[in-house]
């Protein structure tokens, strides 16, 4: 999958800017506060239909404007086709167009598949379970388009159920919504469980390779349910109903689960050092990328926001080495001077460069790397 071009109109601080990334590595460079992250976010939105950071939709539109638009031209290697993807924001509403035809979110997603890696991700192993559930959900949404519909239905049915609990509605009414929660929830549980099961051995291997010396890593999907069947979830929802009625919310289901990392038998979020956290997250992102490449049978686009400020030189090179072995396209932001980038990244092919300054984007320039650099 290749992003050929992305154009932002009145999005965040851009009036009208175009990113034309290269085949492999592209860098958006400039001082802080110029719009580099906004550009990454715009591309990410086409892939995930949600911003990188939680924000009101209105805030995506440049202040003083009615509309904002993000257009992306994407080449799919599998089919050889180029698709035009467009998101138009107007107030709180959003329209999605695929090849100039309005489509639903489910049909829009998959047009561009991207994995993002931002400084916020470094909090993943430490922060709230919600962030880790979101990681799983985003990974699954890329891999299976129906996951979104299931997750949306689950969310809707749960909000309905919580309202019924608060209203002390009849058991018959609650049972009807419990059945839907059990059906959709079981699908989510199974999808997440399978994903973690598939990912774990690869993640452990990757983590050991990065860490040196690395403690023993264990990864598991920590579920409030032993079994992930519809019946098991239904039984628990029924059993927990009296408690749920008192609390006015649903106490069991995939929305309560967590992805747990353990180092030498202790919880990583309590035990791990700063360096171990970084190694873990780096390994996790790399494995996500590899797995997605396998599922899609072509590499997704990797969006890196300001990573070299967060990872040390050796890890940055490891990251790029892996990315290059996948032959994927990478778009990154950096505050470094452009001439230093090839050395920092250990990059041996040409680099496409665009400078970001106060919401404007300079035309793409090729930065050739004169001689082969030492391999990492």
């Amino acid at each position, binding site marked *: 999958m290749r992003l050929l071009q992305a154009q932002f109109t009145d999005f965040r601080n851009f009036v009208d800017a175009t990113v034309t990334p290269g085949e492999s590595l592209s860098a958006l460079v400039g001082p802080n506060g110029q719009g580099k992250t906004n550009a990454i976010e715009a591309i990410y939105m086409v892939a995930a239909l949600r911003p990188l950071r939680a924000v009101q939709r209105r805030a995506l539109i440049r202040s003083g404007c009615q509309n904002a638009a993000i257009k992306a031209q994407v080449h799919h290697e599998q089919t050889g086709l180029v698709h035009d993807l467009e998101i138009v924001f107007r107030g709180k509403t959003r329209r999605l167009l695929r090849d100039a035809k309005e489509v639903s979110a489910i*049909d829009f997603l998959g047009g561009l598949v991207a994995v993002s890696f931002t400084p916020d991700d470094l909090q993943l192993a430490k922060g709230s379970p919600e962030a880790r559930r979101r990681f799983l959900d985003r990974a699954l949404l890329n891999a299976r*388009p*129906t996951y979104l519909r299931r997750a949306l239905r689950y969310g809707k049915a749960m909000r*309905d159920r919580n*309202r019924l609990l608060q209203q002390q509605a009849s058991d*018959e*009414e609650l049972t*009807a919504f419990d*059945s839907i929660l059990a059906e959709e929830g079981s699908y989510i549980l199974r999808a997440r469980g399978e994903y973690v099961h598939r990912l774990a051995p690869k993640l452990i291997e990757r983590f050991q390779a990065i860490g040196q010396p690395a403690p023993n890593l264990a990864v598991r999907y920590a579920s409030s349910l032993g079994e992930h069947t519809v019946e098991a979830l239904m039984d628990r929802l029924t059993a927990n109903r009296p408690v749920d009625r008192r609390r006015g919310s649903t106490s069991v289901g995939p929305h309560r689960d967590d992805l747990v990392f353990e180092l030498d038998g202790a919880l990583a979020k309590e035990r791990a050092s700063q360096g171990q956290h970084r190694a873990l997250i780096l390994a996790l992102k790399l494995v996500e990328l590899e797995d997605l490449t396998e599922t899609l049978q072509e590499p997704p686009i990797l969006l890196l926001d300001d990573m070299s400020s967060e990872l040390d030189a050796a890890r940055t090179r490891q990251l790029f080495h892996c990315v290059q072995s996948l032959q994927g396209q990478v778009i990154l932001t950096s505050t470094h001077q452009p001439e230093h980038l090839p050395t920092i990244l250990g990059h041996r092919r040409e680099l496409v460069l665009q400078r970001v300054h106060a919401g404007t984007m300079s035309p793409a320039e090729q930065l050739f790397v004169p001689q082969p650099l030492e391999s990492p």
Partner: protein
Amino acid sequence: MDPLARLIQVLGRFPGVGEKTATRLAFFILRQGSEFARDLAQAVVEATEKVGYCRRCQNLTDIEVCMICADTRRDPNLLCVVEQVQDLRAIERSREYRGTYHVLHGAIAPLDGVGPDDIKVKELLARLSQENQEVQEVILATNPSVEGEATALYIQRLLSPMGFKVSRIASGLPMGSDIEYVDAATIAQALVGRRLL
């Protein structure tokens, strides 16, 4: 208030009609002249005054028992439960269904404050509890949305103990379509609902 502005405001209350369309409609009405306006006004008043619920199936009708319920050629063993009159009409267009109907006029939607008592579930139960009724199978043809699904499940749990055969309308690929162009969610649903040949 300016009569034209008032007309535009009233027309703007229609679902899916914004100020622009309301203005266009208002000017259209004015251009047509007073006879058209009187016709329109009378049609609106007459419809609202005369149309009510069918005593049996809750379909909209201007007579006590609607045409479908009154039709003796209909199969009294089959009863199809739908959310809206529009759904009944859609099923009628297929000309494949010869049973009777029950219109709920909504679905259970807790977030919108709609409970079972706000839709015609009581009427359905009352109708099915009558001694001389002949229904054998109840087909739940509510929408495949969360609310429609929950409404179907709710009704199913009430009817099964009463000894009725309860079925749910299938969902999957639209007829005459290419699988190629069907959205991913529908294809997934069609695969789940596949049947042995």
